[in-house]
């Protein structure tokens, strides 16, 4: 196998372990992301690890591409610390408010400026949007094939990857021609932890920051302007359940609960 140049798309997201701390700005109807620390989307770390393993085995380059607000630079730097060769961040107010179509369009323009890539790896979904829509959409903008939910990737012949993808109660085996986008699940590997020297060195390295003009983006196709879907309303749903709370000694409440369920006829 020849060397493989891999692009890894990453996104900075609110730390999933602390998501419940997110508060809503009731006036602007947006979330206050500042309340929660930001990390590399966990599945994107698995994608990056896979890219680094491929480079370790076959040679090549790993280039990380991301889109986000200025603090997303930290996520790019963490990717460099893990071992990525280069990091590019699309950052500009005009990119903000993008849905997945608009995000994929923007990322595709950035990627088109990177020469000679053989594959693109992404996490299968993010912990904040959770749609998993960007990898297939990015693939279509780039006119390359895609495979989602990959738990294993092998290279069986030149310009082809054999991918095992998980499905409900089973898996599929897909052969995909390269270049392709492969979106990975957490079963694929265990991400490495950046070394101290990696972290120190990453501080010195450049994260390239690109604006819409750097990728020749059409204004009306990026950010909120380029998003066909929009949130028009938010509300707290009415639930309307009885909500009887049993209090007391554990032995008592346990007895009470089981009795209540017998009364209700559900056990």
């Amino acid at each position, binding site marked *: 196998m020849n060397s493989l140049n891999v692009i890894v798309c990453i996104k900075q997201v609110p730390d999933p372990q602390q998501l419940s701390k997110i508060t809503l700005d009731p006036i602007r109807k947006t979330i206050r992301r500042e309340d929660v620390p930001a990390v590399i989307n966990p599945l994107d770390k698995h994608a990056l690890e896979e890219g680094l393993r491929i480079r370790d085995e076959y040679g090549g380059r790993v280039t990380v591409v991301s889109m986000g607000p200025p603090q997303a630079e930290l996520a790019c730097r963490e990717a460099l610390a893990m071992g990525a060769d280069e990091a590019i961040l699309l950052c500009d107010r005009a990119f903000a408010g993008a849905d997945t179509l608009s995000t994929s369009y923007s990322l595709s323009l950035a990627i088109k400026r990177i020469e000679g890539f053989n594959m693109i790896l992404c996490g299968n979904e993010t912990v904040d949007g959770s*749609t*998993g829509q960007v990898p297939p959409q990015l693939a279509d903008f780039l006119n390359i094939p*895609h495979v989602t939910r990959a738990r294993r990737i092998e290279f069986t012949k030149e310009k082809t990857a054999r991918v095992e993808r998980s499905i409900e109660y089973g898996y*599929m085996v897909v052969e995909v021609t390269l270049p392709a986008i492969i979106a990975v699940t957490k079963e694929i590997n265990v991400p490495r932890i950046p070394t101290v020297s990696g972290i120190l060195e990453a501080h010195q390295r450049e994260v390239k920051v690109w604006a819409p003009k750097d990728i020749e983006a059409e204004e009306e196709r990026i950010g909120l302007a380029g998003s066909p*879907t929009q949130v*028009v309303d938010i509300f707290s*749903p009415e639930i309307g359940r009885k909500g009887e709370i049993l209090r007391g000694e554990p032995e008592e409440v346990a007895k009470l609960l089981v009795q209540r369920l017998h009364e209700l006829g559900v056990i």
Partner: protein
Amino acid sequence: MIEEFKGVWIFAEQRKGKLLDVSLELLGGGRELANKLGVDLSAILFGHDVSKLAKELIAYGADNIYLISHPLLEFYQSDAYAKVMTDLVNQHKPEILLVGATAIGMDLAPRVAVKLETGLSAHVVKLEIDEKRQLRQIMPGFGGKVMAVVVCPNRRPQMTTVRPGVFRKPARDESRRGDIVKVEVDITEDDLRARTIRMVEEKPREKPLEGAEIVVAGGWGMRAVGGFKPVRELAELLGASVGGTRPALDEGWIVEEQMIGQSGKTVRPKLYIGLGISGEMHHTVGILDSEVIVAVNNDENAPIFQVADVGIVGDLRDVLPHLLKEFERTR
């Protein structure tokens, strides 16, 4: 022109010659939307030798079936399915296209949305038609604190993916009539850049959530008692299926098929018991149609108590042993 787009379409997914339940559920939800709009309900069906399934789709409520039958399309092939679906939509211009949020649906729908240059929302829990004939796509948002309503005002079709269990399977009516349109396609293996060569099914290791009468679910709070053993013990006592939240999945206590919530399963058991579950909306949207909801949590402010019929505020370490004993005693 937006007004030209009429009709509600669904992607009918089949695997190994069997229609997935979610496809029939989409016909249930789709029928309500079609009736409100005064339009036809149609389904796209790919496969090989699946005309029997086309008749099934009509019995479950479809007015038209677009049937693409080809030996190379027996399994899901993303390039071919995406291209054919796009061509059909461009030809017939439906205003709404629903896709089941399965491993295949979630792979296919986004690509089609780009080809159609239209919006796609994911994991809706409710769909409504507003006074402008627009599709209101409702899902939990913003960290699960509220419900968000999404619309796609300027592009058609309005596309959305719907998790299994969100809609109900409609009644089967053998006497229903519909049109089956056979769509001819010309494909060779070379056209399939991502080619499915094998599909392997694995039997679920534990009683599945689908159709369970009783569900015992656990969340992050089970950490306090060292994991999921008590959840499984209680499930066994009650003949229940085991479920959990995303944190439970991340901990490895359950598998993906056991996760309940917006991007997991929707369950409608007689009885749901949530142990150590805080009750964020991402999870609770998956349980709201349960007959009786019970929760045990040590935090009286946990949102789960807003949706529970009966709750115990207490330490799992103290409460669980007594609960297990009491269920055992009275069975």
